């Protein structure tokens, strides 16, 4: 069992675990974490399965993995933005189909927010309501006049 085969097996196992997490986890952030683990394990599989130790490491899969990592971080960043918006609009970080029966009080996303009934704000009203709050953008913008 050379080290390459060990890492190959580790990649396969963590890939399986990540698939379990992506399906079974209820909060979407937890699914997202599992997805990132899945991505990392697939990249490990790509390099480990094709590495032949005595030979020099093959740069092509390395480049592919770097490309994969950047693509995964882009998708993760977008997913986080969507999760933030969903929490802001619906008050819950859990997709409707995964909602616990009755929306247990203890499950507040990101701290003390009360999780409302899964109906959440009626869709029509969400879309229509534009930004209503003041609040400075965290971008390092010029201080307000």
């Amino acid at each position, binding site marked *: 069992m050379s080290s390459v085969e060990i890492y190959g097996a580790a990649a396969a196992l963590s*890939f399986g675990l990540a*698939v379990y997490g*992506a399906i079974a986890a209820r909060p*979407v952030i937890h*699914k*997202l974490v599992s*997805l990132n683990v*899945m*991505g990392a394990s*697939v990249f490990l*599989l*790509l390099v480990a*399965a*094709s590495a032949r130790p005595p030979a020099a490491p*093959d740069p*092509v*899969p390395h480049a*592919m993995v770097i*490309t*994969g990592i950047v*693509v995964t971080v*882009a*998708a993760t960043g*977008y*997913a986080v933005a*969507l*999760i933030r*918006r*969903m929490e802001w*609009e*619906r008050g819950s970080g859990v*997709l*409707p*189909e995964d909602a616990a029966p009755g929306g247990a009080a203890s499950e507040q996303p990101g701290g003390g927010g009360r999780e409302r009934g899964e109906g959440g*704000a009626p*869709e*029509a009203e*969400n*879309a229509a309501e534009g930004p209503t709050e003041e609040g400075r953008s965290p971008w390092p913008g010029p201080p307000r006049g």
Partner: protein
Amino acid sequence: MAWAAAWVIAIPCVAGALAFALRGALRGLFIALGVAGATAAAAALVVFVARDGARDLALGGWLAPLGIRLRADGLSAFFIALQAGVGAIVSGYAAGYFAGDREGKAFWPLWLTLWAGLCGLYLTGDLFNAYVALELIGVTAVGLVAASGGAALVAGLRYLIVTLTGSLLYLAGVALVYAEIGAVDMEAAAQGLGPSPVAHVALALMAAGLLLKTAVFPMHFWLPPAHANAAAPASAILSGLVIKGSFYLLVRIWNDVFSAHADDMLAELMGVLGVAAVIWGSAQAIVAARVKMLVAYSTVAQVGYLLMAFPLGGDAWPGAMYFAAAHGLAKAAMFAVAGAIARELGHDDIAKLGGAAGTLPAGFFAFALAGVSLIGLPPSGGFLGKWLLLSAAADHDHMLYLAAIPAGTLMAAGYVFRVIAPALAELRRAPRPSPWRLWREAPPLVLALAALALGFSLSPALVLLSRGAPFGGGG
């Protein structure tokens, strides 16, 4: 003329980037130029492939197994033609639909980069590059859905999680292919992959990922909420074009890369999933409450027909491709009309559609024409697609598909006329039509008429499809 393939991807990319960076009239100009340029480049590529047959373009001059190879053959040219045709008309519709409101500003950069991603997917001859293209399509498609906020945002987030999982399953398959033969180029894989179990496992994983992204029953749960709650132009793009991307890749690897490993058992499973999708999707569409939800479930059903080509093989392939094109046109038209209905009447509940044909006569006429192609009644592209599928089924005595396709046709008639019948009913009060009405009714009419025109132009399509395509004998 080999570079035409590159421009088909580069032009929408540049236009998308500029649509994001610029503002005001300049932005509008570059969007229009981008759409026109992309359509022209696609047309040039199609003519080029039809005339001279398949052509390879080794990017960066690096030859096949090392570098990335763009391959423009009949199959890719056919789908690029569909992308350009439907894309251009839907862009016109979107210009009218979004006239001025905020949601439209995010639409254009995402839509143009999605266009580039789809064309990249259709042209790529490299398995890993297809993964990156799939990711680009996934992120931009979710962007189009989630931009509308509310229920669309939740549907978009679910769609993102599903599409990421699908891409990673596909990538696991690519990793195994690379482990087996040390290359990710499709042609190298086709020659190098022996009958080893690694290839079978790779095919299974890649197929699973792509079936998840094509929303094949029972993995279709994410599609109806996403396509129904998105804005109408976005739904038209998603149902008409984005679904075709992952289906195309599945057909490409099935026929090109894993042709030796596409054993009957997996093909038969695909066929059975297809039949189940047709029955389940149509049943859900018949009981749907909203027009957009009905049209979204119809997509789940129509994807079922495309899958029937796997077990049937032979001339079922061109049939399925032709059916995909007709479905692209008809489905885009239907969602466009659904958008017009939602904007004109303020709602799209089927129960309250009584006499709506009064306010949107051309719109419902377009919906009916698109319905003809969706049901598969002559003279439409859908009919010829089903005819080829049926004759393939009859040739191989596949009784299941010989029964499923007409059953699907009747169920499709069921849910299409659910919308048409009340609209023809007597008009009680005529709500005042808005000024944009014609701009929102003309594009769907053009799309629907194109779907019907496909009913007479099968031979040029078959000639194009045979250019070096996996199932075409041509040069």
